[in-house]
């Protein structure tokens, strides 16, 4: 039944479409601008050959920002069992799904990975260009039926290596060929067989291929120095035992006295002499460059396969030395690994012959001089000063690293520091023969002798200088520390002083505040005193108004004058002198004026003469003085009232010495009833004056008859009888 699709069906379809559209695409060109390269290595990471290829791939392709590398180590050497290929296929099919995670180029190293890739190419990455390297003795039939494929051939340099081996060991009588049961190993052996006839006429050929370990070791033990061994590899025994490539190599080199020559770069170690070797890095580098061309648009079918294997000579110098192989047999520009000092020394001796380094100037120079191999660190020449300085029985062939006590990391750090600081010397620490460690400055200059890079180093002992610098630094630290402590102490003291001053200021402020309060209190007290006196005066005035008796009125008036006299002293207290002092001259003038103004003297002629010294006295002195003057003057005026003729009064007050005041009051009124000195006849006023003089002032009161016949009173008293009660504390008063 067909009909229009339902709404539900349309919704489901829309969701599926949406999901499809939103699913991230990993297909190159649709979702990413990066180009993807899948690297398939036949072997594993850690296998020197493969590592060298990978290093080159990264060097060439890994630097490009727009290239994404996927690396798979197919690990065939360690997994020779059946069924492994199928497992790998499933794995890769799931990881690299065509149309989703699809490489733009597949780069393959070594035969097994190529065989595997070609077999399953249509399932894994159909039509994706392939670049190979490390393919042994490549022929076109290896890729028959395939397009979009190119790469780099790997061919063992069997004849070059054997030819060189025979030159290095002229006593050779036999050539032994060692190989394992691995496909590549078998293939290599086949390659030898192809050239065997070139040597079999002159040398005995021993075929030590595909032997079990025990047999192999036994055979190797029979070989002598007249045999050269051509070793391909022995990573798989016929019975299927897998060996690490270095274990396999050592199995051979350690069980024979023969020179062992190899055909792969990673095999130049562990006792092998060397050879013209296939070069992993060179293979990887060439393949990566071809890959780069394809990524940039080149058609793989038009790129020719590199048939000339990029092989290089490589030798282990320790083996060259062990077998006394002369330098002239070693090809120029051969890579030398594991340099050994003896050989270096020999080369250096030959290279420096006739130069500065072989002459007296070098040998007898006072400065410590060394000639060091830049690559290995071996000393190849040292002058007498160096021997004397270091004290070692030998310096030549000694590695500078055994003298320099700094770690490799410290040495590198120092070298970087020297570059950074633009100095032409290094600061190291060298150990002498007696165990002493000295600070040295090493001035190094590069010298090239026979293609060997050497460092001409002049060494200066700077231990004393460093010690002096250190002493100076310590002294500076001590000085700085002392200064810091001093400054800190000074600062602390300053802060403390500042705090103290602030405290003192605060105390002073508090004192001033207290003083202001005290002054306010004192002012207020005086204000109330004066107000009270005013009120008392008012009471008396009002009371006096109630009685019209003239005598009573006079007595009230006398009373009010006495009160007014006291009040005037209070009015004149000097605020600047603790409100305790009164200007006596001003005060007595006011007292006299007040008395004269309040009496009826205006109706009489009076002549008042005042001669009063300018002096400030305590109110304790001023008030009795004022009252004495009041009493005496009032007395005179009373008598003048009874004799209303011309009256003359005089008041003199002077200092007889610095602390003694003499008050002289005199009038011209004769009082027939009174004779000076007769106290019984004196009225209240004169008696008050006497008592005030003698009792309150502690002085003398002396009435006299004046020259004019009138009365004179001489009062003498000290100004020191009283103390300033406010200025002194309570214990003083």
């Amino acid at each position, binding site marked *: 039944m067909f009909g229009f699709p339902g709404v539900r069906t349309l919704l489901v379809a829309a969701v599926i479409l949406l999901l499809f559209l939103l699913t991230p695409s990993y297909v190159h060109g649709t979702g990413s601008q990066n180009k993807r390269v899948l690297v398939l290595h036949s072997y594993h990471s850690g296998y020197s050959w493969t590592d060298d290829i990978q290093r080159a791939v990264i060097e060439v392709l890994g630097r490009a920002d727009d290239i994404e590398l996927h690396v798979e180590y197919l690990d065939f050497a360690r997994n020779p069992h059946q069924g492994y290929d199928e497992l790998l296929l499933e794995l890769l099919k799931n990881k690299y799904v065509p149309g989703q995670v699809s490489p733009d180029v597949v780069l393959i190293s070594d035969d097994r990975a190529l065989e595997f890739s070609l077999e399953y190419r249509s399932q894994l990455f159909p039509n994706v260009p392939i670049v190979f390297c490390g393919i042994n003795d490549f022929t076109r039939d290896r890729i028959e039926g395939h397009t979009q494929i190119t790469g780099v051939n790997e061919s063992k340099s069997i004849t070059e290596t054997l030819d060189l081996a025979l030159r290095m060991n002229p006593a050779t009588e036999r050539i032994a060929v060692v190989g394992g049961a691995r496909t590549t190993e078998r293939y290599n052996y086949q390659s030898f067989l192809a050239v065997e006839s070139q040597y079999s006429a002159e040398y005995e050929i021993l075929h030590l291929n595909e032997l079990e370990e025990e047999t192999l070791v036994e055979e190797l033990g029979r070989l002598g120095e007249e045999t050269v061994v051509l070793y391909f590899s022995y990573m798989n025994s016929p019975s299927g035992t897998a060996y690490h490539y270095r274990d396999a190599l050592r199995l051979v080199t350690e069980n024979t006295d023969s020179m062992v020559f190899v055909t792969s770069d990673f095999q130049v170690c562990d006792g092998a002499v060397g050879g013209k070797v296939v070069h992993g890095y060179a293979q990887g580098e060439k393949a990566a460059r071809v890959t780069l061309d394809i990524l940039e648009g080149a058609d793989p079918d038009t790129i020719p396969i590199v048939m000339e294997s990029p092989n290089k000579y490589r030798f282990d110098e320790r083996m060259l030395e062990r077998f006394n192989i002369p330098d002239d047999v070693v090809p120029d520009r051969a890579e030398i690994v594991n340099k050994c000092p003896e050989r270096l020394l020999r080369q250096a001796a030959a290279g420096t012959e006739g130069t500065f380094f072989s002459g007296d100037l070098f040998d007898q120079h006072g400065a410590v001089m060394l000639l060091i191999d830049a690559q290995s660190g071996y000393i190849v020449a040292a002058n007498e000063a160096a021997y004397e300085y270091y004290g070692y029985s030998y310096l030549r062939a000694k590695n500078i690293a055994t003298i320099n006590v700094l770690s490799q990391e410290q040495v590198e750090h120092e070298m970087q520091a020297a570059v950074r600081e633009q100095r032409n010397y290094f600061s190291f620490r060298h150990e002498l023969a007696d165990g002493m460690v000295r600070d040295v400055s090493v001035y190094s200059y590069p010298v090239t002798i026979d293609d060997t890079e050497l460092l001409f180093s002049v060494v200066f002992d700077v231990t004393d200088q460093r010690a002096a610098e250190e002493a100076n630094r310590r002294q500076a630290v001590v000085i700085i520390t002392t200064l810091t402590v001093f400054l800190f102490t000074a600062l602390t003291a300053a802060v403390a002083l500042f705090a103290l001053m602030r405290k003192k200021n605060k105390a002073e402020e508090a004192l001033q505040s207290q003083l202001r309060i005290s*002054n306010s209190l004192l*002012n207020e007290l*005086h*204000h*109330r*005193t*004066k*107000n009270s*006196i*005013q*009120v*008392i*005066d*008012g*009471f008396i*005035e*009002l009371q006096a*108004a109630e009685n019209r008796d003239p005598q009573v009125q006079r007595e009230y008036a006398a009373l*009010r004058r006495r*009160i*007014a006299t006291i*009040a005037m002293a209070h*009015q004149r*207290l000097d*605020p600047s002198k603790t409100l305790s002092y009164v200007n006596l001259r001003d005060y007595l003038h006011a007292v006299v004026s*007040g008395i004269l*103004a*309040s009496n009826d003297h205006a109706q009489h002629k009076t002549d008042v003469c005042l001669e009063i010294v300018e002096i400030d006295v305590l109110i304790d002195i001023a008030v009795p003085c004022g009252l004495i003057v009041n009493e005496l003057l009032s007395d005179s005026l009373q008598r003048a009232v009874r004799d209303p003729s011309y009256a003359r009064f005089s008041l003199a007050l002077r200092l007889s010495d610095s602390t003694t005041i003499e008050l002289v009051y005199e009038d011209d009124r004769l009082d027939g009833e009174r004779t000076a000195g007769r106290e019984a006849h004196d009225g209240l006023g004169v008696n008050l004056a006497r008592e005030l003089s003698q009792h309150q002032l502690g002085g003398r009161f002396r009435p006299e008859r004046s020259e004019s016949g009138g009365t004179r009173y001489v009062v003498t008293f000290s100004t020191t009888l009283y103390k300033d009660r406010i200025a002194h504390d309570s214990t003083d008063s």
Partner: protein
Amino acid sequence: MTALIVEDEAVSVMLFRRFLDRLGHTVVAATAKGEEVQALAEAHNPELILMDISLAGEMNGIEAATKLREISDAPVLYLTGYSADEIRTRALQVSNSFFLVKPVVETQLSAAIEALPPSMREA
């Protein structure tokens, strides 16, 4: 002259009233509070104000005199127990003001009134 007495001590008011009476002046009003000065001055237009400084109420004599100046130029004669320079200086900042320290006797008051400028005395 007509006078207004501003003084919180009743006895002092009576005393000053008697002084003024004897000196030939007329007391038109008296108050213990500075706040009432302006109103009394407006009401009685006194020609002289005897002004204590410490008063009942919130306003002191100096503040009352200052307020008075808004409506009257009548001379102000402070009669006070305060003698400190600071208070004297502040009090005398009010125009046409004079200062006597208590206790004041009649002759002093008389002399002070006599010392007023003639225009003020005749006002």
